[in-house]
């Protein structure tokens, strides 16, 4: 594999645009928006679903506890006083959404096998790609420093 290092974002982005086919992965010290827009990650929907499930589960548990498991007659008021259950159900739903969003990312990282490119978390912009003469020429022209990695 060839690792091409750029020290300016502009050169890096131009190179990414010029060799879309051979690229394996790119590494940047902060999120760089690319023009190609791949599929958006599904995490907002996952968190929303977890939040709704958490809310529903919490609300059902409270209704069950106060109507079936431990009914308490307080001056003849309705047992299923659901408006009073909303705050707890809301907090539980929010907790479920936070945990789902976080755990989704942990799971994604666990299934990630990106190579480690030293310097990407400091100030370098990197493109990792399969070696080819065309790519080498293009990258040299774009002002990259090239290093070879054993496959």
């Amino acid at each position, binding site marked *: 594999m060839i690792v091409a290092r750029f*020290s300016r*974002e*502009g050169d890096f982005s131009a190179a990414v645009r010029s060799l879309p086919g051979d690229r394996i*992965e*790119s*590494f*940047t*010290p*902060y*999120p*760089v928006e*690319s023009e190609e827009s*791949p599929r*958006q*990650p599904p*995490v*907002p929907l996952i*968190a929303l679903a977890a*939040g709704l499930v958490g809310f529903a589960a919490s609300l059902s*548990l*409270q209704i069950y*506890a*106060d109507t079936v*498991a*431990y009914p308490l007659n307080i001056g003849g008021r309705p047992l299923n*006083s659901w408006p*009073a*259950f909303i*705050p*707890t159900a*809301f*907090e*539980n739903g*929010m*907790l479920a*959404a*936070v*945990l789902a*969003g*976080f755990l*989704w*990312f*942990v799971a*994604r*990282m*666990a299934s*990630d096998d*990106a*190579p*480690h*490119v*030293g*310097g*990407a*978390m*400091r*100030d370098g912009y990197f493109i990792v790609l399969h070696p080819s003469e065309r790519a080498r020429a293009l990258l040299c022209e774009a002002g990259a420093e090239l290093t070879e990695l054993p496959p």
Partner: protein
Amino acid sequence: MSAMGAMTDQVLAVPSQGGVGVWWWWAFIPSAALTLLLAAAIGWLFYRGVGVWGIGYPVAWGFAIINYVWWIGIASGGTFISAFFFLLRAEWRASLSRIAETMTLFAAACAAIYPILHLGRPWLFYWLLPYPDSMGLWPQFRSPLLWDFYAIVTYVIGSLLFWYFGMIPDLASLRDAARGRARRLIFALLSLGFRGSARQWRDYHASYGVLAAVMAPLVISVHSIVGLDFAGGQTPGWHSTHFPPFFVFGAVLSGFAMVLLLTVPLRRLLGFEAYITDRHFDVLARLLLTSSLCIAYAYAIEAFFVFYGGEAAERSQFLGRLRGTVYWGTILCNVLAPQFFWSRRLRLRPTWLVGVSLLVLAGMWLERFGIVVAVLRHTRIPSAWGGYHPSFWDWATFLGTIGLFCMGILLFLRFLPALSMFETRELLAKGRRA
């Protein structure tokens, strides 16, 4: 060397090579001493019970609740800066977010101690959780005090995850700079193997957006529920619908004050003048002023409701508070002191920023003292009116949590990156493009 590289090296210098200044030890030793005092106070409390505090009849909620509300209010500042202003795409938040979120984490931890301590039988706190117990009992789900338990648990867990999640790319930088196998392994695990690939950044950004979108309404709900703890009681002075927004305004005011109080000295001590600029102080001081105007409105509404409602007990209670110094101290610190920040010149003066922030924090504490003590002392039946005198152990617990808070912040500064490096890199790159 590139500006990004220089910034990364500067921020990583303290956590990866040590080399904190002497000031760190001068701050750490008293903080650690106060934390030991907290441990002693908690030990004595657990041994003897809540009788060691100044509470009794009629003031059964004393320092524990005052300090709980004070700390949880302070905690809101970091969540506001990190979550709200992330969603609003305010780029100035980048250099403040890490310090502000750390502040939130330790303030929320200090707050979370108090409800457990004031239970009386703290080892039975798990009765607040719904579980199929052999007594056949369930928690009282209709009580705001139980809502509060869930709100605090959710907020503490959410703040911890949000703080940690925001640090993952910077932990990866720390891993790459680490010397020694053990340190590298620890930071490799903590950074979840983050490498800065396009896919990882995309996933990271999407998840961070989700966490911010949850934390922003969560912080509002937490302070509203703290307000409902009081509004749910039939006590004159508490039983009012304006309490939830009133508590949110107060929380935000004290939160911004604490962020200012921390960033003004830390900017100089850590040499962050290039990243935390006058612009940041200007923005924070404006936010302080805005939230002060909000709380002024809440105080006005509080007074209006007392006379508009026309209940004798409410009126007598409120007029009693007007005769005391606590109420006027609150107005002076929270409403009048921040008005200096209409002047741009004063918004940029570090001494004024620190002075007004300290006044606001004192004022918010006085406000909660008024809400808890002045109200409980003066209820419906004049024969039940009484007094309240905090004991030595009340003060020891309070000062102890201040020590715990400072110690947490200091340990963070020593071992973790105090600036959000990846967001600062983005700003540096944007500055170069512009």
